[in-house]
């Protein structure tokens, strides 16, 4: 826990968690609707 209280480590961990979480939300919720979230990038 003490390492997590280091602001730099806390920011890095938080960014990784938040970005991963929102990317997964975007991908899976589009997938559930039968739509491709990565449409533009695959084109």
């Amino acid at each position: 826990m003490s390492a997590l209280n280091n602001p730099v480590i806390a920011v890095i961990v938080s960014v990784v968690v938040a970005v991963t979480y929102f990317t997964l939300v975007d991908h899976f919720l589009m997938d559930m609707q039968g739509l491709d979230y990565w449409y533009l990038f695959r084109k």
Partner: protein
Amino acid sequence: MGPVTRKKVFSIMALCAMISLLLLPIIVSIPSPAIGADAPAADAAKKDEAKVEKGRDVYYKTEGIVVGAPAPKTTDGPKDYPRYNFESRVLLWFANQQHLYYGSFVLAVPIFCMIIEFMGVVTKDKALAKKYDQLAYDFIKISLTAYSLTAILGGILIFTFLTLYPAFFGYLSSIFRPVMHIYALMFVAESGTLYIYYYGWDKMKEGFLKWIHLSMSVILNIIGTLLMFLANSWIGFMMSPAGVDEQGRFLGNIWHVIHTALWNPLNVHRILGNMAFGGGVVAAYAAYRFLASKTDEDRAHYDWMGYIAMALGVAFLIPLPFAGYWLMREVYAYRQQMGITLMGGLLAWLFIIQATMIGILFLSTNYYLWQAMGRMRGAEKYQRYIKYLVFILCCGYLVFITPHTMVMTPAELKAMGGQQHPVLGNYGVMSAKNGGINVIITTTVLSFVWYMRGNKVSTLSWAKFGNIFMGVFFFFAYVNIIWLAIYGYYIPANVRVGLSVPQVATTLSCLFFMFALNSVMMKGAKQMGPIEWGKISVRSQYALIMLATAFTWMMGLMGYIRSSVRLFWHVNEIMRDNSPWAYTHTVGFAANMISFNVLFFWVSILFVFWLGSLAAKKVPVSATATAPGGAPQPAGSH
């Protein structure tokens, strides 16, 4: 039998009476479906004797035996449309809207009572428990006075229908005949339950009896909700009829008539809307009492009451746009043309007004929360960041209210180079608007989180990480919402439409995860000072009144939009409106009419508040008379 046991027996009997009242309409209704179910059997027996006519359900596409008359083909005359020297539709609009306002209020407030009474029962702090109990009692007292007015307005509405639209009302009653008496009995059950619940408050204020009393509120709300669902089935039928053939003849399945394409989204939207509206009205009541208070004690009580009502109202306001989105999606799925009339055609400008009102609701809520932080020691640290929230809110709001196309003169059109503004026109599409409203809601969630931790400092060992994580999570939530809004411009419409789901999920993630994280972090937190109830700016109370007025106005507006999307149909594609008023009003006329309804409602409800205050003033007099020089009455005593 001791007095306590006798009370318990009576309480259980009262609860049983309520359950019987709840079950009564269901028991009475059993023969109704049976008639429909027996009809085929009876007809089968007489197959050789009489020819059975069958029809196809306009929505479910199932075959059924015709058991009703076709929808009447009305003509403009005194037979179908008797009238006074005034526009009948406007009279009906007024009667309907007032009944709906009061109906929503008296259905929403008992739900609040149930929640607050429950909070009082489970709270370990006895003083706080009594405060909750007193608050729940105050709520139900207001509701009770408004209840009689709701019933009177319901009567006026029925008479207005019978007098001005007899053919249409006759047809609708014939379709809903199997459940009409259930509705009436539900109303009796609601009244009976409400009175037992209200008058039993003092007799059942402790221990096991309190739980019985709380159970009564659950039954009361089940009845109220079922009542509303039944009423919703009528408007659902008018917009998206089912259970009838193309001539409007009833096919014997009442469930098909009730369970139309729009019934469920309407139910969800109305429950949330009623709760938000009820919270707004009670908050306005508290604000009114706060402003009229003469003592600090009263100010503290009404400040607290206003906050609780506002918090409950906003808790239901936050998911309301999503329920509205679902309703619109179902409208498009039912009839695309209906959706286009609403959002891209004749009524589109009303949605711009609606967006403006929604923005006002959220701005008022945020403003109230920022003001409310002023009564907490320690919350000053957030004050300097509020300007950034104002900026974010304003950006979201401006995008949200940007119209897609402008009403212009030919010269203006030429000067601008088209119907859409070269820059601002880009914001008038759903992709941008979804981004705008989600930014607004996320900011409101952030304001709530700040308010909840205003006077507290977490003492947990990982508090620093928690704070950083929270900040980063909110930051990336904004990034994701705006990114999805921009991404929508670069992909086809059929893919773009799905982006609203992850946008909503992002906002809801902030709501649930950040509230949960904040609650964990603030458990056992160091308090910088107590919340000084009553020490809040007067401006904040006007924000509460603004909130309630905006709710009322928006409810009137949305009711008008929903109703006028049928255009010249009484029942969409089944029964045509042939009265001289089968046209859509101008936006200006509709806005004036809605404003008149809002004004009338507020004047009349102020009268109800005043009546409530008369009853409240009497309490200390009788208390002093019965116990001169006695100890102060406990908060829970009524």
